């Protein structure tokens, strides 16, 4: 009885927080951030925003880095997360063809840990990739491994990190 009662104090879902810093832009730019579960859609289709997966928008500052944020709540931890970052005109990418704006694509390998708030912080390069005609990602998607996503309150939060595994086991699961 005691065990059951205490077990209910632990969450059985997971949260994955995404924090990506983008460099200043000389041209007015709106960032459109979209995420999808890995098992439903790939990067080879145009992602139309839905009520379930709305697009998050951020104005890119011209004089300082801009941080784009997303918090993903998941019931299942056995899934990837797909992320697309589009560099759009100030009015957004609505009405543009899917391959008309630079797009950075990221695939996170199973970033979720049951009952844990995991987090990935990183900084992208100086320039967005040039648009690639006929492709919904301007470059091949980069895969972020499970061991590059951390958790807890360690001092690693302010830097890009990897190596959150010890002898094959992720520290978030210990």
């Amino acid at each position: 009885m005691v065990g059951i009662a205490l077990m209910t104090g632990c969450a059985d879902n997971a949260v994955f927080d995404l924090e990506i810093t983008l460099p200043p832009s000389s041209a007015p730019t709106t960032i459109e951030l979209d995420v999808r579960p890995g098992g439903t859609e790939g990067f080879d289709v145009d992602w139309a925003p839905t009520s379930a997966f709305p697009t998050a928008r951020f104005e890119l500052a011209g004089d300082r880095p801009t941080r784009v944020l997303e918090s993903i709540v998941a019931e299942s931890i056995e899934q990837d997360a797909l992320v697309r970052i589009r560099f759009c005109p100030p009015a957004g990418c609505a009405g543009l063809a899917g391959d008309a704006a630079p797009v950075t694509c990221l695939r996170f390998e199973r970033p979720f840990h049951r009952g844990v708030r995991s987090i990935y912080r990183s900084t992208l390069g100086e320039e967005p990739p040039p648009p690639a005609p006929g492709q919904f990602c301007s470059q091949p998607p980069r895969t972020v491994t499970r061991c590059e996503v951390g958790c807890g309150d360690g001092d690693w939060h302010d830097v890009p990190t990897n190596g959150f595994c010890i002898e094959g086991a992720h520290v978030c699961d210990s």
Partner: protein
Amino acid sequence: MPVADVRRAAGGLELAALLLTAASLPLPALAQETPGPLPVREEATLSVLCPDSTRTAPSPSTDRQLGRPEFLLGVAAAEDERWGDAVTQFRASYALSGSPIALYNMALAFRALSSHRRARDAFCTLAQDARIADADMREESRTLAASEAERVASLVLTAEQPDHGVNVTVEGDVIDLASSAPQEVELDADRRYELLFDAPGYQTSALELMLSQGERRETAIRLLPAYERLEESPALWAIIGGVLLAGAVVAGVVGYFEAQLDATPGRPMVQFP
């Protein structure tokens, strides 16, 4: 914020010492001679802060090459922020050499991994054992040990079995919980744990929990008797029925709606299946 700083000196293991300074720490200098005993006031503070098991450390080896390859691998891993690998290599280097810098770096790697209990223990060893660390390193270690100790929580377990102690397994470590004598187990705060309980003649049981910073939780462990045939125990059926009923109510109403993690406030969110 820089997480690594390189110190270079001359000769031996310490020559390429990389001291991870995640908190912009002043770098401790290596001991050149054996410092005197700690003042009484400092010992009293550390005795509260540090477990007894951290009181002594192996004496540093006089062979400066011992543990050097492992140390350099640890440095490389730390520079790449592969903290898990860094822990493995610095631990091996410390086991071979007894070098305080290897132990210090291992502690900082644990800290970067949010493994606060292990980081505190390593800092405590450095802070208390004057044979291996000089005064500056001990002072730094004392400060860091105190910081890490704030992120450690306590679970006080009591076995209710009148005739047996209970073995408690936490992350592979087995603790002998004597009958009726409470025992305190330290856990890292904000981390999910699964504890296993077993005793001769009783069924193995599991408990999942996560404690917050500074929390001290008391829990009584009551195991169910093991029967060769389940139907031999009417009382067990009654207990199971009660557990199912109470568990369904508690888990369904309280557990699901209140214990689920929420999206981080102040940022866009999406819900995955």
